[in-house]
C-alpha cells in the first residue's frame, strides 16, 4: 500500500469518525488489478477501501455535487479536482463550507490497460491542488509543458483538412454524452440537447447533430473549462475533445487575457460573462 492511500484512509476514517464530514469522495479498486473507480465512503469501514494511487484516472470531483444533501463532503482532490471545486463555486453550485478538500499533489495517472501516462495528465498544468483544507504528502513540481502544442500542430492543417477531420470526428461520436456527464462545467439541470421543444438539435444520430452537440457544448464550457481533460478520457470513441477546449482557452487568453484558464479562482466573472470597453475590435 502506498503512502497516499495510507494517509487518505487514515484521514477519511478520522473525518468520518468525528463527524466532520458525512462522506468522503475518492477512489476504490475494481475487479482487475488496476481497475479503479470513484468511490464514496460513508463509514469508517468503507474508508478502509479508499485507494489513492497512479491508476485513479477518473475525475472524482463532480460526485460531490450529488451528495450535498447528506452533509459536508470530503473530497480527495488533485489539481484537477481542486480546480473543479473552484469551478463549482464560481458556478454557484457549491459553497466552500460544504466541502472539505483533502489535497493530494498528483503524481500523474496511468492508463490501467496500457500503463502509459493518461493524456489528461500529460497536458496538465497544475498538479498541486489550488485549494485545500489539508494536504496529503508534499507538493509535486509543476510540469513545464506547452499544453497547446497539439493544438498548434493541428492549426497548421488547411481548413479543408480540418473540415475533413471534424467531419470524421463527428461521424464517430455516438452521442453517449459521457463527456457532458463527466464535465465539471456541465452542471445544468437540463442540458440544451435534452430540450426537444425549442429544437436546438434533433435526435437523429448524424454527423450534423453530433457537430451541433460537440460545438455548442464546447462553447458552453469554453470560457469556464478547467482543462482537466476528463471529457477526452471518458469518451468511448477516444475523440480528441480537448482540442476544442484548448482552442478556446488559448483564444480567450490572446483576445481578452491574460487568462490562466478556468478553475483557478473560486469566483467569476468568466471571460464571456464580462467585457471591457476597449476590447479588440474586429467587426467594424
Amino acid at each position: 500500500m502506498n503512502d497516499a492511500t495510507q494517509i487518505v484512509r487514515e484521514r477519511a476514517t478520522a473525518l468520518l469518525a468525528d463527524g466532520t464530514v458525512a462522506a468522503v469522495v475518492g477512489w476504490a479498486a475494481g475487479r482487475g488489478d488496476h481497475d479503479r473507480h470513484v468511490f464514496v465512503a460513508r463509514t469508517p469501514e468503507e474508508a478502509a477501501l479508499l485507494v489513492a494511487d497512479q491508476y485513479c484516472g477518473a475525475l472524482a470531483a463532480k460526485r460531490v455535487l450529488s451528495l450535498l444533501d447528506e452533509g459536508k463532503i470530503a473530497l480527495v482532490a488533485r489539481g484537477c479536482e481542486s480546480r473543479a471545486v473552484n469551478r463549482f463555486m464560481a458556478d454557484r453550485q457549491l459553497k466552500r463550507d460544504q466541502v472539505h478538500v483533502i489535497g493530494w499533489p498528483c503524481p500523474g495517472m496511468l492508463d490501467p490497460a496500457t500503463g502509459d501516462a493518461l493524456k489528461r495528465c500529460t497536458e496538465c498544468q497544475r498538479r498541486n491542488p489550488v485549494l485545500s483544507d489539508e494536504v496529503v504528502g508534499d507538493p509535486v513540481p509543476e510540469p513545464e509543458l506547452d499544453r497547446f502544442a497539439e493544438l498548434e500542430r493541428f492549426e497548421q492543417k488547411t481548413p479543408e483538412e480540418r473540415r475533413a477531420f471534424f467531419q470524421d470526428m463527428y461521424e464517430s461520436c455516438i452521442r453517449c454524452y459521457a463527456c457532458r456527464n463527466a464535465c465539471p462545467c456541465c452542471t445544468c439541470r437540463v442540458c440544451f440537447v435534452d430540450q426537444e421543444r425549442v429544437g436546438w438539435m434533433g435526435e437523429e444520430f448524424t454527423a450534423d447533430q453530433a457537430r451541433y452537440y460537440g460545438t455548442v457544448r464546447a462553447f458552453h464550457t469554453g470560457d469556464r473549462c478547467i482543462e482537466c481533460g476528463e471529457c477526452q478520457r471518458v469518451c468511448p470513441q477516444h475523440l480528441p475533445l480537448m482540442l476544442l477546449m484548448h482552442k478556446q482557452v488559448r483564444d480567450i487568453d490572446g483576445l481578452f487575457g491574460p487568462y490562466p484558464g478556468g478553475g483557478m479562482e473560486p469566483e467569476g466573472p468568466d471571460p464571456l460573462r464580462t467585457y471591457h470597453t476597449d476590447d479588440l475590435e474586429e467587426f467594424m
Partner: protein
Amino acid sequence: MPIAETAHEAQGQANEEFRPKILAFCCNWCTYAGADLAGLNRMNYPADVKVLRVPCSGRVNPQHVLRALQDGCDGVLVCGCHPGDCHYSTGNYYAKRRMMVFKRLLEFEGLPPERFQIRWISGSEAGKFRDTIVQVTDDIKKLGPMAADEPSQAVVAALRAKEGEL
C-alpha cells in the same frame, strides 16, 4: 440610380445557378433601423439576405447561428449597434466577445470565415448596411453553396491514412 447599384440585380437575374441563402440577425435599435433607412433612401441591394429582427445583438445565440448554417443557410450575418452605442448599453459588448470566440471555433472546425460575419451598423449607416449586404452576398457567391465546403476525397483519404496522428 447609379449603374453600379442596379447592376447587382441584373447580375442576380442573369446568374441563375446559385442564389445564396443568407440570414442576417439585426438588432432592433441600430442595424434594423439602418436597414429601414436604406429602404427610405431607396438603396438597392441583393435580395439574398433576409433580416431577422432581434432586440439586441446580445440576444443572438450562437446556437441559432450554427443551426442556420446547418439547416440550409449559406451564410449568417450578425449585426448590432457600434460598441458604446448599444440601446441596452452593454449587449453588444457581450455579443462581441461571444462572437469572437464562437467564430474562431467554427473556423477552427473548418468553416470559411466569410460564412459567418459580424458587423456593427448604426441606425444612420444605411449606406454601410447596403455595402455590407452587397459584400457578404458577393463573398458567399464566391464560396458557393455549403456543399462546396465538403472536403475532397483526396483529403479525406490522406486523413484516414494518417489516423491517430495529430
